[in-house]
């Protein structure tokens, strides 16, 4: 017979809160594990009544959906917290944001309705800043890439070198107009900005896979590493190909 923990069972989850947060600036160097530790501590400091799993080693009920890789910034990361006492989502947004270090910033909190959050995150909008790259070369490479049916790329994964297609997952890919200079700013070096919508697939196609694709089809090789930011995630619109806000379905029926 297995030993059973003494004492009462943990209090049940009465509400699930969905959180959209950003990973900005220096904190883009946090890994997924770093973030989950930071969130657990912030939840405790903020006094949010997080529910715990049963067992000898109870874990807070916090789940994460599709975290951006270490080194990549994001304006659209998602997590879900199970609480054992109903909370006002707006208050949780403020308290959690105040408890998290600056750079991990809470943007939006809603009460979850039916359906899993992860299933709604069908695609992402990525922005890649490529300092020192030539806009004309970028335009040409993008055109070549989009006109190709398949672009086989390679990436080293935990299971060794893997070959897969980086083209089909890319819904849109454009060269954004160069960075506009705001008043008082020093003239910046030329910088190409790519914007792309990529469908989430297995194996996942990452922004750097697309970059490798651009190099393979058109020899496009920016001189320095890309600064990558995820701008949005959500269900992909069949017509526009753009992601919608994944919280729309939770908000349907009006704010509480």
């Amino acid at each position: 017979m297995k030993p059973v923990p003494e004492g009462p069972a943990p209090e049940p989850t009465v509400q699930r809160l969905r959180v959209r947060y950003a990973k900005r600036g220096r904190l883009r160097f946090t890994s997924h594990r770093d973030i989950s530790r930071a969130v657990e501590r912030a939840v405790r400091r903020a006094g949010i009544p997080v529910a715990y799993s049963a067992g000898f080693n109870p874990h807070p009920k916090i789940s994460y959906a599709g975290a951006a890789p270490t080194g990549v910034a994001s304006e659209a990361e998602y997590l879900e917290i199970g609480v054992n006492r109903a909370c006002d989502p707006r208050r949780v947004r403020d308290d959690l944001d105040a408890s998290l270090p600056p750079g991990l910033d809470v943007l939006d909190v809603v009460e979850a309705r039916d359906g899993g959050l992860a299933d709604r995150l069908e695609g992402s909008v990525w922005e890649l800043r490529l300092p020192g790259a030539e806009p004309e070369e970028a335009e040409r490479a993008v055109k070549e890439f989009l006109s190709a049916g398949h672009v086989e790329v390679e990436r080293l994964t935990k299971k060794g070198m893997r070959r897969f297609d980086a083209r089909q997952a890319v819904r849109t890919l454009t060269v954004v107009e160069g960075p506009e200079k705001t008043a008082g700013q020093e003239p910046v070096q030329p910088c190409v900005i790519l914007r792309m919508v990529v469908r989430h697939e297995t194996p996942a196609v990452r922004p750097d896979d697309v970059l490798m694709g651009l190099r393979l089809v058109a020899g496009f090789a920016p001189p320095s590493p890309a600064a990558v930011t995820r701008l949005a995630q959500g269900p992909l619109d069949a017509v526009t190909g753009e992601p919608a806000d994944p919280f729309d379905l939770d908000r349907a029926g009006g704010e509480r």
Partner: protein
Amino acid sequence: MSVESLFPRLEPLLPKVQKPIQYVGGELNSTVKDWDEATVRWALMYPDAYEVGLPNQGVQILYEILNELPETLAERTYAVWPDLEALMRSEGVPQFTVDGHRPVRAFDVLGVSFATELGYTNLLTALDLAGIPLEAADRTGEDPIVLAGGHAAFNPEPIAGFLDAAVLGDGEQIAIAISEVLREWKSEGSPGGRDELLMRLASTGGVYVPKFYDVEYHPDGRIMRVVPNRDGVPSRVFKHTVMDLDEWPYPKKPLVPLAETVHERFSVEIFRGCTRGCRFCQAGMITRPVRERSITTVGDMVEAGIKESGFSEVGLLSLSSADHSEIADITRGLADRYDGSQIGLSLPSTRVDAFNIDLANELSRNGRRSGLTFAPEGGSERMRKVINKMVTEEDLIRTVTTAYSNGWRQVKLYFMCGLPTEEDVDVLGIADLAKKVIRAGREATGSRDVRCTVSIGGFVPKPHTPFQWAAQCDHETVDRRLRALREALRSDKEYGRAIGYRYHDGKPSIVEGLLSRGDRRVGRVIRAVWEDGGRFDGWSEHFSFERWMAAAERAFEGEPVDVEWYTTRERDEHEVLPWDHLDAGLDREWLWQDWQDALGDVEVEDCRWTPCYDCGVCPTMGTEIQVGPTGRKLLPLTVI
């Protein structure tokens, strides 16, 4: 003159290195003070990787205390991994602090905390990356004062050439005092330059400035004497002792990192010092006397620390936590306060004979069973008498029986190999002990689902202990005994599979021994190892015994000494030891007598509970034992 942040130059390197978050700073409760508003600026270094250094209590305490001073600022720096070191060299980025990302060379003091001697090569990397000359003699007014502290600083002689100064003992008050001397000297316009500043520090008798002392040697290699080489420098330097820990309730705001570190908990030191008198234990000798933090201060610190950090585990820290005079009330009080809150308690060091069922129950009240570790240290009764670890086999069996019958399934046991007078049979005794532990566990639980892990490493004789005269056991003998023990454990059909075995081989202990009891001549070895690429010697994947031995051979050429001379050679009573001019308060004659008692299997009691046996610390240092009970209790926390 302001100092620019190096972060814009560091940032492009970070995507190319492992765990970049460790170099970014921004920990919860970290502080970046205005550079220009401070007069005295400290860079505090823990000379190991961030994941080891960040949780270090000493650095966190000094960081907070110094930053509370109005005209002082303190930032932290850690050893960078070789991947970043290579990039910093190629891109010309100097050693930086993680708080303001300021260059370490711009600070007034580089304070380095040495918990172990294996951080010495990392000091050299940091100095070199910072652009600070490795040898103190080559430094100018543009360089910080390089100041060592921590337990290894009780014999800083091997790194004396790289240091400007060293401090022995508790850092709280002396750090403030040094800051004040610096502030005064700077406000006077830095008269007399670096030398006068060092002289002002040295003349207090509380700061050791190696270059003000000359070491003279006998032709056979032994030290003849160590003497001050200028007027006004005291012949002995004394350690520092904070007497009232309730007046120094630090850390108040623990640093909470984003990166994963070795200790993910809020630690409160519940007392400092230990007088159990284990003869191998340098910490127990140099931190005397015992000074308890009161139950109420501990309660307040835990409450504030949890609120400030969000940690879910509280470590009650000390050299032997179950020995606090009110440990039962502390653990019960804390367990009551945090009942049902998922806050777990742990006692990192618990003596076998001080553990009991009440403690076991309080520690596991919220359902968690953190691991239990006990350290009998010696495998036979005779061995434990030699080292004065007064723990009997009955104590151990009774304690593990309590633990197993209260739900623990796993117990870890720590031992040492290569202790003075040790023979093969003493080490093989560990196997018998482990089997008895499993047998007791099976009987107590009626189940075969109990385990124990035997963890064992080589013994290193340390300065300021009764074993400072002892011959260190050679690594061949240590490794042979460790293999024999493994065989004895594995070959047992009844118990073998229930016993795990972890060991550290004997070679690193020889290097640690060289560095622990070395003199100034050993500095050449350290430098040669570092120049040959030696880094992170505390990490087995980076440590190279061959590199150390090859460097020693070159460095000692033409000298009457070698590695064996420093390690496996027994010293006689009157040999001048490299640290004899550094005073931890311990009476040398008492230490020698205790060494003789060890050889005669004579035990010594704890002076907390029996009359004083004249170790010398209290009269020399003007200190006294500070223990409870206070009779106070922890009241439930009221929610306002």
